[in-house]
């Protein structure tokens, strides 16, 4: 039986979530922003699985299963949006996608 407390897994999850959030805020390339969003989703998955294993409740891992499926679907649609955006404006720099700006 391992002796790593639950705190440490939660703190690793929180740190990974913050790294993903910093990536979303800082970067200008749409695909790297998308990868930072995936970082945040994985941090939440880690937290859910940690709670599920430490409390003996399977609901956390079931939720992770559905979160992964939704993340896969969202990645397909998000990348299709990036492709059609690139087809119209020839760039993936989010600073140049500003025709809705007043």
């Amino acid at each position, binding site marked *: 039986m391992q002796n790593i407390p639950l*705190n440490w897994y939660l*703190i690793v999850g929180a740190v990974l979530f913050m790294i993903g959030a910093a990536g979303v805020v800082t970067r200008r390339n749409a*695909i790297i922003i998308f990868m930072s969003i995936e970082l945040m989703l994985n941090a939440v998955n880690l937290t859910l699985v940690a709670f599920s294993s430490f409390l003996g409740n399977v609901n956390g*891992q079931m939720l992770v299963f559905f979160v992964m499926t939704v993340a896969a679907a969202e990645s397909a649609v998000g990348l299709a949006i990036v492709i059609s955006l690139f087809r119209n404006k020839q760039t993936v720099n989010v600073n140049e996608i500003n025709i809705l700006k007043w």
Partner: protein
Amino acid sequence: MEQIIFGVLALFAVATALLTITRRNPVSAAMWLVGHFATLGGLYLTLNAQFIAVIQVLVYAGAIMVLVLFVIMLLNITKEEKAKAKMTPKNMLGVGAVVVLGLEICAIIWSGTKDSPQTLSVQSAQIGTVEYIGHQLFTQYSFPFEAISFVLLAAIIGAVMLAKKNVD
């Protein structure tokens, strides 16, 4: 011994995540993210979540990152322009706010879970197996299981409609 393994895996996860968000080249960032997903699979294995660990490597590292790399190659995205907007006050403020929020969250977690479980539950090895999760999927979670197939159908139709060339 388990603490060494956990420490190495946690350090790898944080390091590959930091490397992902700081690379100029999108392909380098994608490669580091693949390493990050594999490291998270190892962390899931330390939690006795065997099914989730394998699905993590299969779905995230194997499918989503391949899709991202295909898109990068299709759009022929090269390195970002060199850091003209790197150290703007807006960027520093954003990263600073995120760091402060992260420290607050870590402090809350550290102080709020003093009496949290110290060891894995005795059922964790049983609930992490494929048989148990499969059984739950088909009995208690059968409705979300069927509903997720509609989500995937909508995503497939949406992706095809968005990405095809308009011939009108």
